[in-house]
């Protein structure tokens, strides 16, 4: 079956430079993460603690969201609820219109990608400027992020140098990373002050205190949230934690899992707009809380673990499939293992269910997940939801729609043979007996491999001469 996913994968596998970029980057990230956790016992303790913090928050999600809203409001942050990405975009638009804003400076936000916010606003004449270096680079090239925390990871230094030279011909060509960074910084610096509205994502929302936490390295997040007079934060409803004490362990495991950093350069805790007498900070702070299918995920005890994700990207960095096909192959906002469980749940298994198939279930993702999301189990569950008959027993969107008569018939026949030993053994004996007549061209398998060779006689036949009890 040919699909859009399959075609993109094929195209991307054929780009040696992109593959090399991913391979090099992911090797580096894996090593850096490993270096951050020299003590395996401490790592496992911290993973368990982090999982418990996230699981606790999700177990009382509605209640915590109410507390959060009350405390944010008390702190002067205006809270907006959006069930769909359309609603979220409309909310952002209405805030911009209220301030007659024609441009917006953005810190990094995957939820804004999920909303397709840039497209939505630009179609209405609002300029959206990405201020995260990686996002800035891909925006210049008209691309989407290929990784959730390192959006331009698919590009190497030379490709970026060429891109800058093409877009800013007045600036001398350089391949020096520091100079390239300085160029971006100079261009962005003025925009921070000129933009009437700044937008950011959120890493954690603290219900108890009504605080928004933002992790970043470049300082652009801080600029986007303080220099413009209006700050809009957009995030998913699942990012809430109960108390301030929950933050340090999560922050510690987030940065170490993600980029292998013990801490990031900046950690912002936003607890309200500028207060009387304060010299800086925005005059208005808004928080847009997006559902976009998350409530549906929340309603299933087995799938709920998906929402524990703290968006560190460790699963992506360690995925042998992702490193080869790259983030763009997935055709979704979130790529890699987390994308392969999140996107089919958000859009439906009929739409993105194929992503759940594109895994060997090797478990490298769950081995590193800081909050122990059982990604392979959820992939398995989504495969089941895709083809199951009792669709009334699941809330998963698009359930049963991937079931085809021919595949279902194949598995039915297989199960019949495997539950009738006489048939099964007759088949295998026959196969080994006439193995010379079996095809040597098995389509996809034999493109790079020789056809598997059947043994002269099966184990069942050989066991008879082994002196074991087989009656």
């Amino acid at each position, binding site marked *: 079956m040919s699909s859009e996913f399959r075609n993109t994968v094929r195209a991307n596998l054929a780009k040696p430079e992109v593959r090399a970029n991913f391979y090099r980057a992911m090797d580096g990230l894996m090593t850096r993460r490993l270096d951050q956790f020299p003590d395996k016992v401490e790592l496992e303790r911290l993973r368990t603690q982090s999982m418990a913090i996230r699981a606790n928050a999700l177990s009382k999600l509605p209640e915590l969201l109410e507390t959060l809203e009350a405390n944010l409001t008390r702190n002067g942050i205006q809270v907006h609820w959006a069930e769909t990405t359309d609603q979220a975009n409309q909310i952002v638009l209405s805030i911009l219109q209220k301030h007659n804003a024609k441009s917006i400076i953005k810190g990094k936000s995957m939820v804004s990608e999920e909303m397709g916010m840039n497209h939505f606003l630009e179609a209405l004449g609002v300029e959206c400027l990405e201020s995260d270096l990686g996002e800035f680079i891909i925006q210049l090239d008209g691309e989407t992020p290929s990784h959730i925390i390192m959006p331009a990871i698919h590009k190497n230094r030379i490709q970026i140098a060429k891109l800058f030279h093409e877009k800013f011909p007045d600036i001398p060509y350089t391949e020096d990373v520091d100079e390239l960074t300085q160029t971006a910084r100079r261009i962005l610096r003025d925009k921070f002050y000129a933009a009437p509205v700044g937008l950011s994502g959120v890493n954690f929302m603290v219900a108890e205190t009504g605080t928004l936490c933002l992790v970043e390295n470049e300082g652009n997040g801080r600029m986007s949230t303080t220099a413009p007079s209006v700050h809009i934060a957009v995030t998913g409803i699942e990012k809430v934690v109960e108390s301030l004490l929950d933050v340090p362990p999560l922050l510690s495991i987030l940065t170490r899992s993600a980029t292998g950093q013990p801490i990031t350069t900046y950690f912002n805790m936003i607890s309200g707009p500028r207060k009387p007498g304060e010299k800086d900070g925005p005059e208005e702070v808004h928080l847009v809380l997006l559902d976009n299918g998350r409530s549906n995920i929340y309603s299933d005890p087995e799938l709920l673990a998906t929402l524990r994700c703290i968006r560190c990207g460790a699963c992506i960095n360690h995925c042998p499939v992702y490193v080869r096909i790259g983030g763009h192959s997935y055709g979704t906002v979130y790529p890699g293992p987390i994308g392969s469980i999140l996107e089919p749940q958000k859009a439906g298994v009929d739409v993105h269910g194929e992503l759940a198939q594109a895994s060997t279930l090797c478990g490298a993702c769950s081995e590193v997940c800081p909050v122990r999301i059982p990604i392979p189990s959820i992939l398995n569950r989504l495969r089941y939801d895709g083809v199951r008959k009792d669709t009334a027993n699941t809330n998963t969107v698009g359930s049963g729609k991937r079931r085809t008569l021919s595949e279902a018939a194949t598995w039915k026949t297989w199960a019949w043979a495997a539950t009738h030993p006489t048939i099964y053994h007759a088949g295998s004996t026959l196969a080994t007996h006439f193995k010379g007549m079996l095809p040597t061209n098995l389509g996809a398998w034999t493109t790079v491999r*020789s056809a598997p060779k059947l043994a002269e006689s099966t184990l069942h036949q*050989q066991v008879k001469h082994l002196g074991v009890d087989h009656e």
Partner: protein
Amino acid sequence: MTTKPDTIYFFGTCLVDLMYPQAGVSAMQLIQRAGVKVIFPPAQTCCGQPAWNSGYRDEARSVARAQIALFPKPIPIVIPSGSCAGMMKVHYPELFAGQPDEAQAVDVASRVFELTEFLVDVLQIELQDLGEPVTVAVHTSCSARREMGVADKIESLLGQLSNVQRVEHARKPECCGFGGTFAVKEPEISAAMVLDKVTHIRNTGVDRLISQECGCLMNIGGVMAKQGDAIPHQHIAEFLWERTGGNAV
């Protein structure tokens, strides 16, 4: 259940049955040589993993149910494969959750051992190397490594063999790209993964490749055969049996 049992059940797996029977034979011989009686229930077929991983849970359950019925005695079930052992140990309880025979499934799961785990932890097997000097690369399957957590057992067994030198390869813990139906459903990605794996193994210059998983051996070995000049590759049981005196039971 870490004391040495008198008798065990052996589950051969369908891949061993059809493609690598010698691995199954050697595994049973190793266990017999250690003084343990082996029961090989003749009605065994497949653990049900292919259907389970494809989302066909009803079909997987009916096949799994037929296997569960073959292991009534309270003795260990030894399996020469990390992934089939993982299916029975980890996934049977999930597959039968809420079913009338859940207790039987959980009981079977609790008695499952992957072969190398059984040889090291339960039999505490002692090996004497009688072979010529040889260099080997080890490929541990993802199920053995992560699902079963027994990746170190194959290393510890090989470590007992004085003339066997283990050589590490790049990205050793990474999946070979087999993944059962994955290799068929996503052939291009699988090919990219296994081609890299073969390159890393070839770069070691070893004499032999050893694994406890016949699926991985079929995948990696298939590529090496297609490329010509395949490095001899063997299931750990067969290798151990060969190195420690072969058929001199």
